[in-house]
């Protein structure tokens, strides 16, 4: 994301780049989708593949119930890192793989760990390994996020 170097808006950063440590873990966030949420997401994202809202189609594909959209799970992970970093930070890159199918009612856990820090031209750049995990420990969605986070060195220089 390309931004000016002199703007923080009206808000004090929730998190400064300099205060973040390698191997620091993000507090986990739990997510449980409802069937109603899948219908709302289908409408909001215009993803009308029926396996996400039509029980018969899901059953024909061998599932006991409708399945959660992969991109909804990614939206949760983007939300998870954005919330951790604060409104003065932003996501530069996000990468995900869909390894398992998840269902409404399942408790899913967003996890993250800081793996790299570099000082960019205007911001600090922080790489985070992220994943969405089932309660039994299976990783459903592994991924990576690269965030720009306000740096005292850059902004206050």
């Amino acid at each position: 994301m390309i931004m000016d170097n002199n703007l923080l808006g009206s808000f004090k950063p929730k998190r400064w780049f300099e205060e973040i440590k390698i191997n620091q873990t993000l507090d986990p966030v739990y997510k449980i989708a409802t069937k109603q949420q899948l219908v709302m997401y289908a409408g909001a994202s215009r993803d009308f593949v029926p396996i996400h809202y039509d029980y018969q189609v899901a059953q024909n594909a061998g599932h006991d119930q409708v399945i959660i959209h992969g991109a909804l799970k990614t939206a949760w992970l983007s939300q998870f890192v954005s919330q951790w970093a604060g409104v003065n930070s932003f996501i530069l890159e996000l990468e995900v793989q869909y390894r398992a199918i998840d269902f409404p009612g399942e408790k899913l856990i967003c996890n993250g760990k800081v793996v790299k820090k570099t000082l960019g031209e205007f911001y600090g750049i922080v790489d985070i390994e992220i994943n969405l995990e089932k309660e039994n420990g299976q990783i459903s969605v592994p991924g990576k996020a690269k965030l720009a986070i306000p740096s005292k060195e850059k902004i206050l220089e």
Partner: protein
Amino acid sequence: MSKNLHSTVITDDIKSFLNAESEPVYYQIERQAIYNFSNATGDENSLYNDEIFARSSIYGTLIVPPLFIRSLRPMKYDPLFPEPFSHILDAGSKFFFIHPIRLGDTICVVKKLVDIFEKDGKMGKMLFRKTEITFKNQFGQVAAKEFNTIITYGYGEKDPGIDDHG
């Protein structure tokens, strides 16, 4: 009819779609669409939900959540991609966010088929399609890019909506 695993499903017709681009489609970024998306994903971030707050931010107005770009669907290829299989899986994506997308922006969306390959797996032969989707704003700047991988496989009755992806 049995299918030979050693045969290829990548016909000349399919190969001809490599580097094919969809016709551009334009979307105006509307307030209610941003609210609906953040509500559907359970995202309470004030940058997407609170216009007064967002006006005081570095963006000067509401912006869209990162995954909102998934709602800005590209056009289907014309003619349609000659899909040989019946079932579809989304394998994953890599997103690049370059410029913020703000309320009122006009975003032009084009998809391009950048790679096609096949693999043999538990479900028989699978076709992988990697698509690059480019989101440009009204200033001609690339606001975001998505590289999405779709897998199709299996025969029989086609999954409803299989043509809406990839």
